[in-house]
């Protein structure tokens, strides 16, 4: 039988705020256990939550970016269950009236086709703490630093049909929330994590099969693997005449498999009810209009513009807009350097990105500012230095943060464009290498490169390579005949 895969994703987007969603404790990652949890996060008797207004703005941004509807009277509910990392014994979340609903995201599949994935809802909620199973004399440790961290849970319709589509959707959403600057997108630190609802059905069948939910898969690669594993597991069950149990499963990346966490029968009755400690959130038309004004250009629109206005290729535009900060950097360099965009794109995607990767830096940690970098490209553009001398200047710039002009001056890297000077070097090289000259003249054309190299070497790389080529051609070919 031919099976069709049906996937819906629930993505937890950690919102990039200064403080928690209902308290003013900071949310920096990696702090010592329980140092970022105040009396409210610890659920001391008598404490009350106060909503961080920033999260509402962020949710509205996501709504506008996904063509969603905004519930202008959204309410917070309590989701009641006991767990040691859940200090209040309930999680403040949204149940009825989530702030964002009925939107969509267009994704690009591997074959270049576009597909529209509908977004059911996105709701605000607080994160729980963490249980630590380290060395606590047989006990479990609790770290409540993460308790109360703001999350926006984005729920898709079950419209994804393969692991690859799921990954494409995730990447699109990831890029979007990073562009909106509402999430740092760091998947290792759990800032963007995903639960996958997976089921299968005979192709052509309308009714959905029994689904499983695979929890907390924290990389694109693992999402793909976890879904593929789960699909294969479900097919094998059905083909062996067995049943799929509706349950929550956990992906184990070490063994590349999913395993059962709890079944539906064990599932909690969360006893949702409106949180009486929080008022309904009223969102005015003015507030939405204000945020609309502040919305950044979204990745798809920017890709288009970079192609149409700056003439970038489809490929280059994709690479450069993959991150908003990289694209910002690129556009700033283009503006400041007046160099052709292809040159800037090559440099940004080439040496520049390689240097960042080598140091494991993100663009905000980059030691070469757009101003400095533009100065370098300007000198390549106006032929003060060659592209290869440019690499030398770039690496000096990376170390010293000095301007390209200063480095060129200090190291005497200015390109030699004086034909007489270059000719003089060529004559010397030809004179010093009579053997090779003879071989060349005997028809060994490949030696042309040898002479170019020798001349460039003798000029310490400063000779204009184009001129060297031309003059050398003149000498070798015209002189021989």
């Amino acid at each position, binding site marked *: 039988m031919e099976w069709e895969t049906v996937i819906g994703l629930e993505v937890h987007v950690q919102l990039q705020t200064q403080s928690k969603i209902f308290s003013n404790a900071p949310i920096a990652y990696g702090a010592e256990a329980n140092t970022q949890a105040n009396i409210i996060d610890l*659920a001391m008797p008598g404490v009350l939550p106060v909503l961080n207004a920033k999260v509402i703005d962020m949710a509205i941004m996501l709504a506008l970016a996904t063509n969603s509807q905004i519930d202008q009277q959204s309410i917070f509910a309590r989701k009641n269950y006991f767990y040691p990392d859940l200090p209040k014994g309930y999680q403040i979340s949204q149940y009825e009236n989530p702030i964002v609903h009925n939107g969509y995201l267009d994704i690009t599949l591997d074959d270049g086709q576009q597909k529209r994935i509908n977004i059911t809802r996105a709701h605000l909620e607080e994160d729980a703490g963490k249980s630590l199973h380290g060395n606590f004399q047989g006990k479990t440790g609790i770290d409540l630093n993460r308790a109360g961290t703001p999350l926006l849970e984005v729920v898709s319709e079950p419209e994804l049909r393969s692991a690859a589509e799921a990954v494409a959707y995730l990447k699109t959403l990831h890029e979007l929330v990073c562009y909106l600057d509402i999430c740092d997108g760091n998947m290792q630190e759990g800032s963007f994590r995903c639960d996958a609802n997976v089921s299968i059905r005979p192709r052509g069948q309308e009714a959905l099969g029994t689904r499983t939910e695979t929890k907390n898969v924290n990389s694109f690669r693992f999402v793909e693997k976890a879904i593929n594993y789960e699909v294969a597991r479900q097919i094998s069950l059905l083909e062996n005449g067995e049943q799929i149990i509706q349950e929550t499963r956990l992906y184990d990346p070490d063994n590349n498999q999913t395993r059962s966490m709890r079944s539906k029968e064990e599932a909690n009755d969360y006893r949702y009810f409106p949180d009486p*400690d929080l*008022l309904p959130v009223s969102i005015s038309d003015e507030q939405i209009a204000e945020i609309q004004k502040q919305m950044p250009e979204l990745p798809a629109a920017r890709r288009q513009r970079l192609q149409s206005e700056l003439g970038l290729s489809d490929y280059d535009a994709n690479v450069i807009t993959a991150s908003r900060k990289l694209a910002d950097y690129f556009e700033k360099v283009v503006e400041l350097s007046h160099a052709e965009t292809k040159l800037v794109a090559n440099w940004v995607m080439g040496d520049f990105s390689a240097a960042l990767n080598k140091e494991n830096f993100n663009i905000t940690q980059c030691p070469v500012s757009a101003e400095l970098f533009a100065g370098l490209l300007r000198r390549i553009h106006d032929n003060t230095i060659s592209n290869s001398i440019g690499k030398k200047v770039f690496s000096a710039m990376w170390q010293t943060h000095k301007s390209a002009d200063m480095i060129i001056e200090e190291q005497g890297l200015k390109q030699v464009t004086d034909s007489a000077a270059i000719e003089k070097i060529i004559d010397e090289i030809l004179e010093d290498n009579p053997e090779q000259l003879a071989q060349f003249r005997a028809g060994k054309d490949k030696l042309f490169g040898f002479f170019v190299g020798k001349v460039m070497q003798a000029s310490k790389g400063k000779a204009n390579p184009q001129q060297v080529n031309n003059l050398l051609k003149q000498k070798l070919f015209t002189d021989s005949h």
Partner: protein
Amino acid sequence: MHDKTITELSQLLENKETSSQEITQSFLERMRIIDPHLNAFITINEDYALQAALDADKRRKDGNAQKLTGIPIAHKDIFCTRGVKTSCGSHMLDNFISPYDATVTKRCKDAGMVLLGKTNMDEFAMGSSNENSFYGYVHNPWNPELVPGGSSGGSAAAVAASLTPIATGTDTGGSIRQPAAFCGITGLKPTYGRVSRFGMVAFASSLDQGGPLSKTAADAALLMNVIAGFDPQDSTSVDTSVPDYTATLNDSLQGLRIGIPKEFFSDGLDPEIATAIQVAAKELEKLGASLHDISLPNTELSVPAYYIIAPAECSSNLARYDGVRYGYRCEEPKNLDDLYKRSRSEAFGDEVKRRIMIGTYALSAGYYDAYYLKAQKVRRLISQEYQNALQQVDVILGPTTPTTSFALGSKTDDPISMYLNDIYTIAVNLAGLPAISVPAGFAQKLPIGMQLIANHFQEAKLLNIAHQYQQVTDWHKRQPEMNHQG
């Protein structure tokens, strides 16, 4: 000294006729002798109080005193007090020293008031007799065989017995007004949102409200000036201006329209109370008010609606007491489930467990619509009914309770009869309205409380009426016999 109102004490302090240390010493001495018979306090911290009195006297000497600087106060043990045990009347929090101050306690502290101690209460404010305390019964100063009312029973008994000149309480379904009525003192439940709930241990968040228990309406006005007002730490506190509650105490009642709902005088009401309340209404009429018959036909729905909503919220509010971070933890838990089950079953009392179970049930899948949502609809109905009534009249008048105080142990096996004692007070919480109970006579030597209910944020009007009433009556000046002995 101990029979003085805080209005009088603050005048004495201002005239330098006494000091806070002298006043505080006097109340502490009285507590030492009398409280063993009443059990009104869970915690008395003499050193803490004396230090605060010393500071208050210095502050007054430095010319930085406010009206209530140096005045002693007792807080219901539901208000968090930094560095002092805050038990909420429960075994669960018997070991809990609060790391922070509630907004109410902080405001009192900032005003220079002297904390004498923390008063006894029904566990987590659940009860109408103060019999549900881990720390034992509180006795009614008018008759030690009787209950002081609840849940703010310790505060009411302490004020009635003059162990403190004033106290705070909280009112979720009558927990300030009913004990005030049973103990013959004045108790004000402010509008929901008027006094911050931050640091007030939650029972039913949408109903809880803190307020004063005092000897007179004028005293309640003075304390309201300290504790009322917007608090950014409580999202449900309301950001509207706070009047000087003492400024309008002497306003005339001429033209005041008083509504008397016939449902408040139905079969369950003690006839002696009915008579006393009618006499009290006539007094107000003499002062210039007009009396109008009104109807609040849904009054009887308020108790069932309340006993869904309050337990539902409590079942969730009390989930944090899990033995993990603070409070009671059972010995040698075998695993996580055992830790939860034993910590909670060993440390919560019967009434708390009963309400957690009722609330959990009412919120469960399949029952939510039939119970919780239905109760919320009834709540809106009752709220609307009061709004309609308060369009026709300025205030609503009736008895605070259907009976006077009852014998300790007489209703503990019959929760429904206990719940019905709150029939006149509960609707006020459901509607979020302010209401005051003032002494209005005696039945078989036991105090009777008259309740006045006004529209949202009209506490000043209630205090004005109560104060005017107290100018022409002396019920509030009557003291239990034990006060004459002490």
